[in-house]
């Protein structure tokens, strides 16, 4: 997994600028530059270039197919500095490092995966082509899951508590993902079985059984779900049960608590339960901003000290039209037309039903899955560090209009590649002017 095939390709011409989001592709072949001559300035031959920089250039090789020339430098030459010098020459129009491109992606074999734009958006249709509501998103408007999975697909030791309507325990894509310790706060003697669908949907986004050739892919392939049922089939729950559920999850080994629900009121005992889970049990609490299309993050996401508040985006990296926003918004994730497992109680196909849903609930599940991956890969991180890292590695997708953290998207749309892959350290002068 960690030794993928390496392809050497010419990726960029004309700029060596370092990108804010450094990725694997920014590794390059040592001691090589690729240049293009400026035809206006007259034809230069390889030998004249060699003679012009005898101390820097070791060999020159024409690349006629690319209309470029490969320059091999001596080992002591700083490629970026020398590249800048070449760019200053009249005869040189473009310079590039010979970057490595790596096929560092892990693509699962789940049949619905091609329609999970949130995980990998290549501009595909959001629905299967036959659907009338179909539309295609923008390539790259996703959480870069396939690139993040190259570093980790999670760990079975990570338990995500889903405080919701329960889970369809025998769903084909979830039955192997249910950990111990689930609880039904409505009927203490009953299993936390989903009779609404929401809990199953959220759980499948977090950790559906992935790469099993069935159904869909979850964000964290291996994490376990702790289903905690507090909502009934009418999507109602009392706040006492929610507070107890948060405490129960924290006390029973959940490292992450997914709260894809909202409350209009600030309820002190729910806040205290969040404080307890966050401070005493070091849980990561992930909560939805709300779906009422207004300014104002709802509770418990508004408990800014304890919860990661998540808004929703669509397949074009735009804020989903119904997503609430506000100063407490930490990050956003795709939440529009998200493929997920669900229930269909009256049909024999119940345990293999899938649907598409929209809401900050589903964006919240994406972030819980991302936290589960991070916690799997780096178990030593604290909940504070996890929150900061999610924020700092998010893509500022609305920077064209609002640069930096803003109330609509917080720090931006989460990016699993930046979150999990190593940041390549490059020298401060590793930047060339645009040519």
């Amino acid at each position, binding site marked *: 997994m960690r*030794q993928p095939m390496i392809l050497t390709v010419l990726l960029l011409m004309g700029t060596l600028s*370092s990108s*804010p*989001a*450094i990725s694997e592709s920014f*590794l390059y072949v*040592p001691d090589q530059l690729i240049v293009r001559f400026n035809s206006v300035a007259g034809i230069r031959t390889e030998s004249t270039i060699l003679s012009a920089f005898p101390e820097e250039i070791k060999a020159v090789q024409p690349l006629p197919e690319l209309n470029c020339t490969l320059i091999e430098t001596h080992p002591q030459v700083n490629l970026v500095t020398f590249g800048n010098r070449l760019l200053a020459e009249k005869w040189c129009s473009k310079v590039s490092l010979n970057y490595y491109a790596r096929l560092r992606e892990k693509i699962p074999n789940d049949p619905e995966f091609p329609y999970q734009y949130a995980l990998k958006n290549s501009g595909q249709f959001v629905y299967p082509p036959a659907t009338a509501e179909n539309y295609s998103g923008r390539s790259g408007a996703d959480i870069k899951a396939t690139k993040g999975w190259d570093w980790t697909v999670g760990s079975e030791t990570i338990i995500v508590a889903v405080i919701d309507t329960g889970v369809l325990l025998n769903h084909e894509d979830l039955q192997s993902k249910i950990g111990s310790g689930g609880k039904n706060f409505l009927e203490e003697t009953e299993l936390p079985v989903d009779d609404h669908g929401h809990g199953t949907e959220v759980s499948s986004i977090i950790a559906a059984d992935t790469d099993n050739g069935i159904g869909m892919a979850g964000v964290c392939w291996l994490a376990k779900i702790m289903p905690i049922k507090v909502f009934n089939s009418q999507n109602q729950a009392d706040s006492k049960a929610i507070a107890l559920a948060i405490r129960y999850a924290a006390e029973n080994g959940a490292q992450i608590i997914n709260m894809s629900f909202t409350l209009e009121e600030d309820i002190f005992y729910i806040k205290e339960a969040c404080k307890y889970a966050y401070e005493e049990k070091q849980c990561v609490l992930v909560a939805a901003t709300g779906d009422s299309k207004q300014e104002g993050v709802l509770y418990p996401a508004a408990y800014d000290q304890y919860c990661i508040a998540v808004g929703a985006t669509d397949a074009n990296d735009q804020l989903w039209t119904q997503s609430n926003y506000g100063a407490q918004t930490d990050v956003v994730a795709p939440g529009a037309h998200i493929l997920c497992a669900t229930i269909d109680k009256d049909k024999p196909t119940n345990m293999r039903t899938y649907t598409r849903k929209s809401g900050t609930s589903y964006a919240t599940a994406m972030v819980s899955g991302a936290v589960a991956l991070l916690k799997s*890969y*780096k178990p*030593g*991180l604290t909940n504070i*560090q996890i929150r*900061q*890292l999610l*924020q*700092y*590695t*998010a*893509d*500022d997708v609305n*920077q064209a209009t609002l640069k*930096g*953290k803003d109330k609509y998207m917080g*720090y*931006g749309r989460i990016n699993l590649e*930046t979150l*999990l*892959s*190593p*940041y*390549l*350290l*490059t*020298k*401060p002068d590793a930047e060339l002017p645009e040519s």
Partner: protein
Amino acid sequence: MKATQSIALILLSALSLSGQTAADPAPPKKEEINVWSSSVGLRFSYNQINTLIGDSESPNRQSLMHAMLTWDFDVSDYLTIGLMGGYALTRMKDPVDFTTLPLSLRINQEQYAGLVFGISLKSDFTSFGDFTARIQGEFLYLLRDSQEWPIELPIETGTAQVSQNGFLATADLILQFDGLSGIMPFAGIRGNVASGQFFASETIEELTGQEKINWKQKSLFGPLAGATFEIGSSVEITLTASLLARFGADLQIRYLF
């Protein structure tokens, strides 16, 4: 006090007298003045060592270049001690990843500069015919400079610092041929142990972290061969090449006092 001194003086006189009376007058003994011979020199080394970094099982080749001043002195007929110090450059062939930091970091083929200090011991412990058997060892400590890097994330920025240290301990068992004039070829077995650590730290706004990664040498033994050339009565040039444990070459020019 005076009594003690008097007794001692008497005892010494008695011993002296007894010695004179016990033997015939001996010829005056030739006094030996023990002057340690020494040499100073310059040494240039280029070595490549396959290292295992952290838990990785695939070797990452480390190139080491040293330029050192050396001072060797004979403390007896059989033992020479050397001190050395100078400048070192190191470079890893493959990237080094720091994956337990909050934000994983990667350094890629960066060159580290720093200082190197060392001590060596050499003993020609036996000779037979035109051959001399020698055992020699050295310990080098490498102290590389800390480097600072910017971290530029979409909204926040920060800094990373990476430093490295390590040691090389070498023991050579050598057989040297002394039957030629002006050149003394030698060959032997080299045992080499190298180990060290990378340190990385990062600060991005309020997010901070540190990580230490150990590295160690993969192969411990290998052959070596070389020759010492005598140029005049005071200058020696030694060339040494080794394989496996340390793939590299070593040139030492020494001026003998």
